């Protein structure tokens, strides 16, 4: 009797569970390899906070992507490659269709999972970091270094300096200092700067700063002796405020100190205090909370106390907005892929990859998203996984970042040539046959 009862109860339970599953909405899982502790926590907490808030916004305001709710799970990487690989493996099978996209926000982790994403058929999106030559989609079908790469950025910075000087021909004979983080990340700038220097006839003075870079006396002495016209700050973490402060001390005008996008956040300027006033930095997203998309997040997400940021004043900061860009790109790729593989369905990583490859965020789409001017228009193709390669320049006015230019283009033919050359060398080393893009649909 008791046994029978148990069976009946079990059957009822199973039935309930089964029907519950059948009526549940489709869900799209996104694994987030975040870092909220360690040396880069300041960037990580802002970026992943913005990204989560945007996905929360899509769930709250629109009820998901065509009815498919977004779900996510964070996995702490501590910006460490081994932990990143563990997170990648842990997250890849989660959710009903597995992880849709992997965005490590760490160049080291990007390299560590580069081969694995192709085997597991999960697209990897690296916005503004990672392997530059992966922009050649024929050789790296699974990797998307979107919006812009380090090489495009270096080229855009030189173009910006050119326009400031009144024309690219005015660069001849100028000296540009390159104060770089002595690591793989910093050295990424060398090849492109050398090429640009040869093309435009300026001189590059490369000055290395050893990690972490909280001591730059000798470097700035060198700068004072060489008297460069501009200094490009290719820094990361504590190196940035130190460099800004050292520039003020040596009397180098901050208006001629130009940071890259990992040097141009509130976390870099506020610690430098008043010395940072006038400092200029590139960015593929801008700071500011008065864009409609951020206003919507405040209304729909923070209005319902579902926001991810503990410090709400950081909403609208550079890193936070960068996270929103990650969110927009992820959600739009899923939306695009649903057009092909069925609206209102949960998609596999392979299907989402198609969405990334056919992503087209034109002005009209950006306007609809409330992100006009927030990020550059973006069009990805089979061959070109990078997109526009444009950046805006912002200047720190002592309290906040002010946008001072429109989107500045890079030297596309030069950068693309370098990308293809480097990717071809990789393909040769690994024995990869490039895809024929005319056959892709």
């Amino acid at each position, binding site marked *: 009797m008791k046994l029978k009862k148990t069976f009946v109860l079990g059957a009822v339970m199973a039935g309930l569970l089964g029907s519950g599953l059948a009526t549940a909405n489709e869900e799209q899982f996104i694994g987030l390899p975040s870092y909220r502790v360690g040396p880069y926590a300041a960037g990580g907490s802002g970026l992943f906070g913005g990204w989560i808030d945007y996905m929360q916004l899509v769930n709250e305001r629109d009820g998901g992507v065509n009815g498919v709710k977004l779900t996510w799970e964070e996995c702490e990487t501590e910006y460490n*490659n081994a932990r990143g*690989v*563990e997170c990648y493996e*842990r997250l890849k099978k989660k959710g009903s269709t597995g992880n849709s996209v992997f965005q490590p926000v760490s160049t080291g982790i990007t*390299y560590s999972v580069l081969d694995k994403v192709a085997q597991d058929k999960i697209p990897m999106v690296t916005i503004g970091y990672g392997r530059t030559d992966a922009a050649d989609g024929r050789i790296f079908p699974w990797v998307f270094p979107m919006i812009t790469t380090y090489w495009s950025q270096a080229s855009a910075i030189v173009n910006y300096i050119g326009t400031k000087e009144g024309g690219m021909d005015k660069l001849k004979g100028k000296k540009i200092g390159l104060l770089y983080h002595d690591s793989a990340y910093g050295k990424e700038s060398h*090849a492109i700067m050398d090429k640009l220097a040869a093309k435009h006839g300026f001189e590059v003075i490369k000055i290395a700063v050893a990690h972490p870079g909280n001591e730059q006396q000798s470097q700035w002495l060198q700068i004072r002796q060489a008297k460069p016209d501009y200094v490009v700050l290719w820094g990361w973490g504590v190196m940035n405020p130190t460099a800004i402060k050292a520039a003020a001390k040596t009397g180098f005008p901050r208006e001629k100190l130009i940071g890259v996008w990992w040097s141009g956040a509130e976390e870099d300027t506020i610690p430098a205090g008043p010395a940072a006033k006038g400092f200029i930095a590139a960015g593929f997203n801008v700071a500011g909370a008065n864009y409609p998309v951020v206003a919507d997040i405040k209304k729909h997400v923070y209005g319902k106390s579902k926001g*991810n940021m503990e410090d709400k004043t950081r909403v609208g900061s550079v890193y936070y907005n960068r996270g929103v860009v990650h969110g927009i790109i992820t959600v739009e790729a899923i939306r695009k892929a649903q057009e092909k593989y069925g609206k209102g369905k949960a998609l596999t990583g392979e299907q989402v990859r198609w969405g990334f490859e056919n992503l087209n965020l034109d002005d009209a789409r950006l306007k609809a998203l409330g992100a006009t001017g927030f990020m550059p228009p973006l069009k990805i193709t089979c061959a070109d996984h990078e997109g526009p390669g444009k950046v805006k320049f912002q200047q720190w006015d002592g309290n906040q970042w002010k946008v001072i230019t429109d989107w500045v283009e890079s030297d596309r033919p030069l950068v693309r040539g370098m990308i293809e050359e480097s990717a071809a060398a990789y393909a040769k080393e690994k024995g990869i046959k490039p895809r024929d893009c005319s056959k892709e649909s």
Partner: protein
Amino acid sequence: MLYREAGQFKATYAEDSQIFPIRQDKIGFWLLMLVFGVAVPLLTNEYWLKAILIPVLIFSLAAIGLNILTGYAGQLSLGSAAFMAVGAFAAYNFILRIEGMPFLLALVLAGLTAAAVGILFGLPSLRIKGFYLAVATLAAQFFIVWALVKFPWFSNNSSSGVVTAQDVTILGYTFVSPEAKYVLTFLIVSFMALLAKNMVRSSTGRAWMAVRDMDVAAQVIGFRLMRTKLLAFAVSSFYCGVAGALYAYTYIGTVEPEGFNLDLSFKILFMIIIGGVGSIMGSFLGAAFIVLLPIFLDNVVPAIFGDALGAGFVSNFQLIVFGGLIIFFLIVEPHGLARLWQIAKEKLRLWPFPH
């Protein structure tokens, strides 16, 4: 009751000097080998193999390397990660530049390269001791990583200094699946661990321990200090080098010099401190502890506190718990987990009649 050596007599010297003199230990050892060598790759999934077991094995090997140097020979070193880097990049270059280089030979050559570098950086140990030596090995840590970034030849002119490991092929078989890679790592690590165990029981190991306990006395009774210390550096670096090559080839697949930074050296040092200084078994326990506990906490803590507290707090809380547990274990047993295991064995011998 079950764990008792009564009735097991040793009639020859060979029997007396085996690694596992007690029959139960021997059975236990072979059971363990069977479980981890056969059952685990058959039964567990990709996640466990790729993300947990392979790194534990590789870090165990690195910890054995450091344990030989620090635990047995008494030379404090903070350069283990750098020697791993030497091994990883050496294996990459041997396979890249020599046509038809067999993987296992490349692994040995990588170890030998690391050993040569280790001897070089071990030279100061002849004059300086203790913490001062640790500072000297710190130089190795920074110099090697710097050199690998500085000279593009090491990374085959890759613009970012990152290299991608080639496929692992032995006798025409390519190790691709996580199971195959795990078994390969397992075989290499257990072979080298056994080798290390025998080495530290032999005259070489005894020389190391003599030098560790009092180098002047060791010199007086006839050990050649230079030879002994440099041999310890060489063997230790060899182990770290092989571990580094395995890290590149069977685990991560792509390596960058910054991956082998001071943090990793400290991590390996913590492994042997937690596991047990001067114990091969402790190297395994320590590596498992340091690799697994953060992952375990990352799974458990958010599940319990995730909704109530912010994500940032949860991440920091894990580190607090991790640190707290390390302190707890060190207070409970300053000689490491291996010592706990030893105590358990002694208790078990007397059980169930402790008096």
